[in-house]
């Protein structure tokens, strides 16, 4: 295991940021810690890095207990949401910092910095200052700076959180490719489920200082253990006490005994995907997701009276989102 956190608890005053959390992250993987703000995901990352001291619990990196080591002895790379660029140093000096601390020969540093500048595509910008770079460039510089010292693990704390949507999408695709090239064990903290699912091999969903579920993105999407995970890793519509993915909601023109009557409020065309906003007979509002072709075939419009039924639905023991690992029941019916 590259990272092993065991029974970690951390309080800030009365607030419990981490509640007896244990986590194992395999060597060479790219794992996402996913959760809403206040779920403890950033605190867990900072505890692993040694930037935050846990109240109880231990952290091991590659089998070495580092719990008592300060951050500068742990050999981790850390990337901050707001870049934490050294503003008074050029890009090249920023990247060289960790190597200079380690007193590597000048020639080696120069060569390594040049390699890293190529790796993160900042060619020709080595002599710029951070203030002369865009947000995306600054974050790539920060990544190169963290990678320069060949860390045992790379920890990214909402690395793309301060960037605009377009740059964010580009950078996460780039990060995935980079990881396939460099293979360093990487943990990325994010509150964006799409980002987590797109980038990571494995996703750890956290809430209120606890781990709710961990697994491959598909596993989480298809077999969420509770209501919170189901609604956090993808969109859901609620029919009574059942949770349904919008693409599992069938829309028909005629009833068939298991359907409920509904009225179409609005159609939202998003290219390939069409979202249908519906109001059920009891006034509840649900959302269905169709492909463009399905929507065209169905021939519905705002105001149409239709019948809906879930193709697959999920029931969780009770409605409380914070409940732990209660078993989910799945009912599947053929369309």
């Amino acid at each position, binding site marked *: 295991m590259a990272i092993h956190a065991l029974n970690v608890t951390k309080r800030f005053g009365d607030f419990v940021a981490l509640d007896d959390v244990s986590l194992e992250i395999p060597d060479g993987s790219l794992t996402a810690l996913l959760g809403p703000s206040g779920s403890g995901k950033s605190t867990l990352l900072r505890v692993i890095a040694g930037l935050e001291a846990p109240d109880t619990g231990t952290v091991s990196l590659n089998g070495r207990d580092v719990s008592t080591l300060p951050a500068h002895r742990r050999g981790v790379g850390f990337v901050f949401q707001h870049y934490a660029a050294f503003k*008074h140093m050029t890009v090249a000096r920023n990247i060289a910092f960790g190597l200079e601390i380690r007193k590597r020969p000048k020639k080696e540093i120069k060569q390594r910095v040049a390699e890293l500048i190529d790796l993160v595509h900042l060619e020709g910008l080595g002599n710029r200052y951070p203030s002369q770079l865009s947000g995306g460039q600054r974050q790539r510089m920060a990544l190169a700076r963290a990678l320069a*010292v060949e860390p045992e693990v790379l920890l990214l704390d909402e690395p793309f959180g301060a960037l605009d949507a377009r740059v964010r999408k580009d950078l996460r695709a780039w990060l995935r490719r980079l990881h396939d090239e460099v293979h360093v064990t990487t943990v990325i903290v994010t509150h964006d489920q799409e980002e987590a699912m797109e980038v990571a091999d494995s996703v750890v969903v956290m809430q209120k200082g606890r781990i709710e579920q961990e697994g491959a993105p598909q596993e989480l999407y298809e077999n969420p253990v509770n209501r919170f995970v189901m609604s956090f890793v993808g969109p859901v519509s609620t029919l009574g006490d059942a949770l349904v993915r919008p693409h599992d909601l069938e829309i028909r023109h005629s009833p068939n005994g298991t359907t409920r009557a509904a009225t179409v409020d609005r159609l939202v065309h998003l290219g390939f995907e069409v979202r249908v906003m519906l109001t059920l007979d009891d006034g509840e509002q649900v959302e269905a997701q169709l492909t463009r072709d399905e929507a065209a075939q169905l021939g519905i419009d705002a105001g149409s009276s239709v019948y809906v039924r879930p193709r697959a639905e999920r029931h969780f023991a009770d409605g409380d989102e914070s409940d732990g690992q209660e078993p989910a029941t799945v009912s599947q019916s053929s369309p």
Partner: protein
Amino acid sequence: MTASLTRYGLRFVALGYLLALLIVPVVMILRKAFENGFGPFWTAITQPDAVHALKLTLEIALISVPLNTAFGIVFAIMLVRHDFPGKSVLNAFLALPFALSPVVIGLALILAYGEGGWFGKDLANAGFQVVFSMPGMILATLFVSLPFVAREVMPVLREIGDEQEQAAATLGAGAFTTFRRITLPAIRWGVIYGVILTTARCIGEYGAVAVISGNVIGETETMPLIVKRLYDGFDKQGAYSVSVVLAAIALTTVLLMTLFKPKVEA
């Protein structure tokens, strides 16, 4: 129209204020000092007592400024970056030299370090006289100029935050390396401004130094003290001339600091 009127009005008031308070008096001093030409000015500032006062003032500043710069940075880092019991008390104490009248500071130091004071006897037995001599004057100067560097550095430290320092730590830099390579360059303008103010105060301090020095002519007399003595003794030429030298030193400090401005401000 009214907007520009307001703007010009504001400028006029600000400049007028500056003119009345600062520029006119300083120009008057300059005029008076050179009223009878350069000769009398030169004679006044080269008399042995004046030369000694200049040397003493600079010596005190050379010792006090580095000490208070170092302690000011330490205080600022402690107060901004660390949490410890009594932090708010320390913060309040740091304002004391501003709040307390310098004369009171001088008297307090005499009480603590004088012959009848708490440590006075022990110090005297050890052959170390504080009051009416240079050590006491340095103490008084340190006291009155203590807060400047800390007060200038603290807001800068707050503003830069601690993320750069944390990043340096994850890259393998220990506390001292992080301070030297990351924190110090980031706060340098706060430090420099603090040093300017500290220097100005060290050179110009009158009250506290006057009390503790005992005003021994040719021995414990600094430049502000000699200005006052000459003025009281109707040697106006001497008083104005030494004042001009004091003002020149202050101006030079400010100019030197401005010249060191880096070319690229990232």
